[in-house]
């Protein structure tokens, strides 16, 4: 976006800034021998034309941005552009003067002109460079504003994700189905019923606590997931099978709290529960090259993904982005009948608590 043309209200002041320059130009010409009238009529249109030509300084500014290009490149690009523009301007000036000579008031203007060529060239180059400098300034200003906007947006996304994480912690389906299962066990297996009751209470307590924490060691996150899976196993019986493959090094890494839980819940709700014969939920984690890789896999089912699963993934993605920016990623895909979600993030030891 052009820093002057794309913004209403900037073109006016920019052109107004050229008025004194037009005056200066006229003055130069007057000193060079023209009358003030002649000088003004020659200078003002030329100044207007060059004002617009300098707006094109944006293109070289873009191709040699201050932050990324070498100093040499910037200098060479801008001088080349300045030279070209100035020469073009001079050509236009010459044409204009020749045109004016037709009129009696301007007879003889052309004679004085060649003397002024070098001066005008220099003036053209200087004005162009000034124009380029202005563009760089405006671009820099725009970039600073954009950076601020980005920071704010990230902040908002993090807050929203936090809120959603809190809200999503207690899934009603899970809660009521579990209570129903407990109710069912009371008559037939009272001890199991009591255990399940306690497990559920612990799970809910942990979920609520972790909602307020930023990062935890992976081992703790896995413990929560396993507690959840233990509860679900009562409901699904042999339909839910769990495999775990996490290496010791990975377990000590820090992860955002409740980053795995939504994935595991999805795996059960949208994978296992949708299949008559059930299947395997596989959780794997490894640390390699300073990065942590976590995967959750479940059998893919033919039915179209219901809306819930999408939200869970989006939430986790946002939280990873809020904490690690571009350094973390979430990849979800179906391959060979398995739905696989892989998280990668920098491997860092958890803060000492």
């Amino acid at each position, binding site marked *: 976006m052009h820093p002057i043309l794309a913004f209403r209200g900037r073109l006016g002041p920019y052109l107004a800034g050229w008025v004194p320059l037009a005056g200066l130009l006229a003055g130069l010409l007057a000193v060079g021998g023209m009358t003030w009238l002649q000088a003004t009529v020659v200078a003002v249109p030329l100044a207007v034309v060059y004002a617009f030509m300098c707006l094109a300084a944006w293109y070289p500014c873009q191709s040699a941005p201050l932050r990324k290009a070498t100093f040499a490149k910037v200098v060479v690009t801008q001088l080349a552009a300045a030279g070209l523009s100035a020469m073009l301007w001079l050509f236009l000036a010459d044409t204009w003067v020749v045109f004016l000579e037709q009129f009696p008031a301007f007879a003889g203007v052309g004679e004085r002109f060649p003397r002024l060529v070098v001066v005008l060239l220099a003036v053209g180059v200087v004005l162009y460079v000034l124009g380029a400098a202005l563009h760089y300034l405006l671009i820099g200003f725009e970039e600073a504003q954009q950076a601020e906007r980005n920071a704010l947006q990230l902040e908002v996304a993090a807050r929203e994700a936090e809120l959603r994480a809190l809200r999503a912690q207690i899934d009603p389906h899970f*809660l*009521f189905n579990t*209570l129903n299962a407990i109710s*069912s066990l009371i008559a037939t297996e009272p001890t199991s019923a009591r255990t399940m009751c306690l497990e559920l209470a612990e799970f809910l307590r942990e979920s609520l606590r972790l909602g307020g924490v930023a990062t935890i060691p992976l081992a703790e996150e896995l413990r929560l997931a396993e507690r959840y899976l233990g509860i679900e196993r009562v409901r699904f019986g042999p339909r839910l099978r769990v495999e775990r493959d996490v290496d010791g090094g990975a377990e000590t890494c820090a992860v955002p709290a409740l980053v795995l839980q939504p994935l595991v819940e999805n795996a059960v709700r949208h994978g296992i529960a949708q299949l008559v014969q059930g299947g395997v939920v596989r959780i794997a984690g490894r640390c390699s090259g300073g990065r942590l890789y976590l995967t959750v896999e479940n059998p893919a089912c033919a039915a179209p993904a219901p809306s819930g699963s999408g939200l869970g993934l989006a939430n986790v993605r946002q939280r990873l982005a809020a904490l690690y920016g571009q350094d973390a990623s979430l990849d979800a895909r179906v391959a060979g009948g398995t739905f696989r979600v892989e998280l990668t993030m920098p491997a860092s030891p958890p803060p000492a608590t």
Partner: protein
Amino acid sequence: MAIETTPGTLRVAIVDDEAPARSLLREYLSALPDVEIVAECANGFEAVHAVEATAPALLLLDIQMPGLSGFEVLELLGREVAVVFVTAYDEFALRAFEVHAVDYLLKPFSPDRLKEALVRARQRIGQPREAGLDKVTAAARPPGTWPARLVAREGGRVHVIPVDALDLVEARDDYVCLRSGGREVTKQQTLTELATQLDPARFVRVHRSFIVNVAKIARIERYGKDSRLAVLQDGTKVPISHTGFASLRPLL
């Protein structure tokens, strides 16, 4: 006039994919006199067969199950059965009402709550059948949501057809023939009823006896002076009536 309740034993079938949920219902029902559990099913397919085989008067039906949902099971039943939905979440309550379920139990529920539902079931079973309630259809769908698949029963088999793969529906007497990718499945339903399950922006009744998936039309041909045919991607030719064409034109 007192509402007659069915005397004698109430034959009940339990349908839920979770074993603890089934055993809980079994426990509650065993404590009741004159209730007999005639079948216990772990999924919708089993349920459809069990209803055929054991003819229960009442179905205690979970909604969210793998394979077929509780509502789809209802659609496939070949007999008139009273239904009480049993589920963990209340989001389906409105739809349950629209398919004329007897009751809607929220897990976990007490034995008394179940007894209440059974009383209502007995009342419903004792009532004379209202005309027009023969077939249960998913009526009054919330706007913007259409079933992604149709279910049909042919003999012992249950067929599930994704709506995207449906080419054409043809009416035959009092049932319809669903054509999809060369396969044909018949379903006991009138074309008009089936039309209520299909998005009119994608499926048009081009003729008294045909509904066509607009996305599967390859071209329209004229034949004779006044008549048109739709030719589908697989070559099938479907006649289009005048009114049918009027409905079809804006979507082409």
